[in-house]
């Protein structure tokens, strides 16, 4: 009896702590959301009110006057979107070859790829800048997308997935005379949808949110992404609070919506990361 009461008390404490942490996590994000509907006066009012008194869309209507939000968003979509699509193709092709085909130097090449996974970005940052400069690709989409068009982690993850598929799959296809690319594209890829979604979300989120990389490779505001452009504008205090709130909300909205609809794919990739 005493024991069970103790257990219930402990359960209540656990839930209470979780609730407090949950509130701490949600309040700043909720504050951003509701504050983006305040008018100019309320945004800077003191004492501050958490919720707006007069809900208004004015910050969203005027945001493009002070922040080039349309161009930032376009750049983020093109950069993160194309990086995701291209690296899904290249990562899965390499992963497929390493998992299902035999060729000379396979182990060595895969070992080298795993090593590149451990190279910190800051170490290659300066030479990468020089390369992109020499290729005359600074401030271009190609310069932003090319270095990210594949990743060691993606290859590793796709390989782990392809290894888990039964061998009989491509054997029957080979007997039917299918070419290697047909087997990969028409037989393997449809089975990979969960893995591709997981890796795709991983790539999209990382590139959408990345700061230092686009900051370094794009010096003009026309080419800035949401993350790098907002960081620069806010840092230089050139925009007012109201538009900043609306622009910041817009910048996290796509990922939030994606999270609401595809939550399990956000965390599914983590188990792959943790295996090593």
């Amino acid at each position, binding site marked *: 009896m005493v024991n069970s009461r103790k257990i219930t008390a*402990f359960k209540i404490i656990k*839930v209470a*702590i*979780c609730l407090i*942490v*949950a509130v701490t*996590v*949600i309040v700043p*994000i909720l*504050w*951003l959301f509701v*504050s983006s509907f305040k008018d100019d006066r309320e945004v800077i009012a*003191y004492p*501050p009110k958490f919720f707006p008194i007069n809900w208004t869309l004015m910050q969203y209507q005027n945001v493009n006057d002070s922040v080039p939000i349309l161009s930032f968003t376009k750049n983020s979509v093109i950069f993160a979107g194309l990086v995701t699509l291209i690296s899904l*193709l290249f*990562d899965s*092709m*390499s992963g497929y*070859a390493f998992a299902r085909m*035999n*060729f*000379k130097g*396979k182990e060595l*090449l895969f070992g*080298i*790829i795993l090593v*590149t996974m451990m190279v*910190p970005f*800051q*170490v*290659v*940052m*300066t*030479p990468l*800048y*020089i*390369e992109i400069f*020499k290729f005359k690709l600074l401030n271009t989409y190609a310069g932003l997308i*090319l*270095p990210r068009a594949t990743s060691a982690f993606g290859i590793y993850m796709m390989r782990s997935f392809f290894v888990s598929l039964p061998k009989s799959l491509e054997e029957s296809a080979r007997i039917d005379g299918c070419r*290697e*690319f047909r087997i*990969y594209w028409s037989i393997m890829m449809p089975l990979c949808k969960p893995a591709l979604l997981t890796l795709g979300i991983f790539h999209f*989120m990382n590139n*959408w*949110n990345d*700061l*230092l990389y686009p900051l370094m490779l794009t010096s003009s505001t026309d080419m800035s992404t949401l993350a790098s452009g*907002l*960081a620069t504008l806010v840092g230089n205090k050139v925009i007012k609070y109201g538009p900043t709130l609306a622009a*910041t909300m817009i*910048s996290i909205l796509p*990922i*939030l919506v994606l999270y609401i609809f595809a*939550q399990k794919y*956000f*965390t599914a990739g*983590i*188990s792959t990361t*943790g295996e090593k």
Partner: protein
Amino acid sequence: MVKKKKANIGTQRSAYLFILPSAIILAVFVFVPLIASFIISLLNIDVFMRNVSFAGLANFKKLITDTRAFNDTFNTIYFTVLEVPLQIITALIISTFVANNTRLNQIFRTIFYLPFICSLTAIGIVFSMLLDPNMGWLPYLLNMVGLGGIAFLKDAYLAMPTLIVISVWKNFGYTMTLLTAAIIDVPGYLYEAAEIDGAGYWKKFMKITVPGIWPTICFCIVTNIIASLQTFDLPYIMTKGGPDFHTETIVQYIYDRGFRTAPYSLGYASAISVYLFLIIAIITFIFRKFILNRREEANAW
């Protein structure tokens, strides 16, 4: 026989074609830069790439006596030493609370992961506003309990701890997700056996949960240390390294030296990168060794 060999060569060639795009990209944009960074650190070279000349070890000699680099190393280590344990302990406690797959716990886990998916740019902007001494929410609330006028980001002693807390707030959900997955994999009969022996919550946590997920904890420690040593985004957005360089990190200094402040010395920036690379490599190595020994101990318990 001949035909089989021919087919084999055919698949070999297509295998190379499959990995060709990735191989070229990784070679050009990771491998060459990795080697080049060591070479560039020995050059006098600026962002416009005119007047390139060999500098020998001059950049490294300069680095040894550079007080700003020393200060930034201190800040980076300060950040890492507090952020990583705080974040992992928070994540560990919370993950033992929410490991059971009840509906409520799933909702909690969904919420706790939320900050991790938001960009540090957005988070930095939001917290800068929330902490603003003139109209921010937190100073306002603190004012009501008599702690008025604290400028968190402008105070030499408070700025870094503030950034650390925000970083923990952002990242603990990720670590929690990893640890929760590991806790679910710990066999249930171990807990049942311990309960029969009359073990309490704390004892079960220390003797079953922690040893059971120790490899995952190690993984979290090492990856979080590496990530913390590379901190850039939060101080760049929230403090610009201030007040008076109290929150400037090594990566910020690399970026500033190479790309922001004249004479835009890429050679010196590269030397600092190599220096950071060595710090990361040494700490990772020590930790892996240290942790691997500990792990055997944990298994022996």
